[in-house]
């Protein structure tokens, strides 16, 4: 869906008009430069490639510098392709956070914080064995049974077990827009957003109703 690239700035809380204290995530969104336009004829699908966050030319590869030069802009750190833009943007155009000024709800995609190798209690919210007594020992965070015995004589595929947790792309739907500070490219959304402060996010305006 159409959207912009941003960066997580931090969290705070503000009072709204009703006197409710609203937890907010502050995102620095845009300005994003349109660096390439993919069309059905040349690429098989239509999309817009956006770039965000300045990067030094000397730390960019020549191929990337050339790519950004085509859009008449400086090298950028984050490049994302998004579909569904209604307006016909041209290569080299900049889209600012004002793009969301009529939106009430937005979707955010970001990479969640990596947790490393975790057990099933943290990873899948298993309860472990609830008792510490009644003959239980060392089993407070155990996964329990993995299945039946002689039939099927195997563990089914997809059985939830311990493993690498977090560090995956997560999309949150329908986050309320609290405020847009257009002159500073800041967007405030209600609630939390995946990932650490300073990590990249993709904010999209949904076309759901």
């Amino acid at each position: 869906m159409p959207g912009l690239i941003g960066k997580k700035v931090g969290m705070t809380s503000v009072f709204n008009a009703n006197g409710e204290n609203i937890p907010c995530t502050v995102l620095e969104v845009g300005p994003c430069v349109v660096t390439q336009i993919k069309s059905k004829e040349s690429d098989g699908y239509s999309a817009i490639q956006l770039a965000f966050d300045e990067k030094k030319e000397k730390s960019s590869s020549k191929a990337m510098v050339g790519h950004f030069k085509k859009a008449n802009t400086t090298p950028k750190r984050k490049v994302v392709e998004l579909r569904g833009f209604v307006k016909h943007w041209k290569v080299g155009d900049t889209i600012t956070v004002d793009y969301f000024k009529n939106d009430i709800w937005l979707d955010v995609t970001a990479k969640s914080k990596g947790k490393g190798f975790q057990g099933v209690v943290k990873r899948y919210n298993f309860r472990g064995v609830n008792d510490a007594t009644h003959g239980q020992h060392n089993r407070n965070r155990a996964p329990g049974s993995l299945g039946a015995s002689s039939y099927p004589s195997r563990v089914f595929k997809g059985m939830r077990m311990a493993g690498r947790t977090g560090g995956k792309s997560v999309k949150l739907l329908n986050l309320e827009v609290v405020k847009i500070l257009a002159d500073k490219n800041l967007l405030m959304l209600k609630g939390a957003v995946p990932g650490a402060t300073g990590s990249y996010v993709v904010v999209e305006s949904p076309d759901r109703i």
Partner: protein
Amino acid sequence: MNLMKVVESEFSVEKNLPKFSAGDTITVHYKIKEGNKERIQQFRGVVLQRRGTGINETFTVRKMSGNIGVERIFPIVSPFIEQIDINKYGRVRRSRIFYLRELTGKKARIQEKRF
């Protein structure tokens, strides 16, 4: 964190609250909504701590209601705080006086500050 300051300045409200810190006895006049009626209630007690900065700053007030301790945490920028009166300046040696929770009776007294 520079951009966070921008956000804070955007939402900061000028409030003429008196200066107080941990150990002081204050009365917080705060608005309560009951249905669509509003009235003002008072909460008088000892300030246990002030924490946070900017729009996230809060303070904790503890009072003894009968023999049960009651603590309330107020955000400094809360629109419900009508007024704060300082009843007593207390002399304490730390900025967070949680030890007061374990003390009752004569031990829970705080020496008044002399100027």
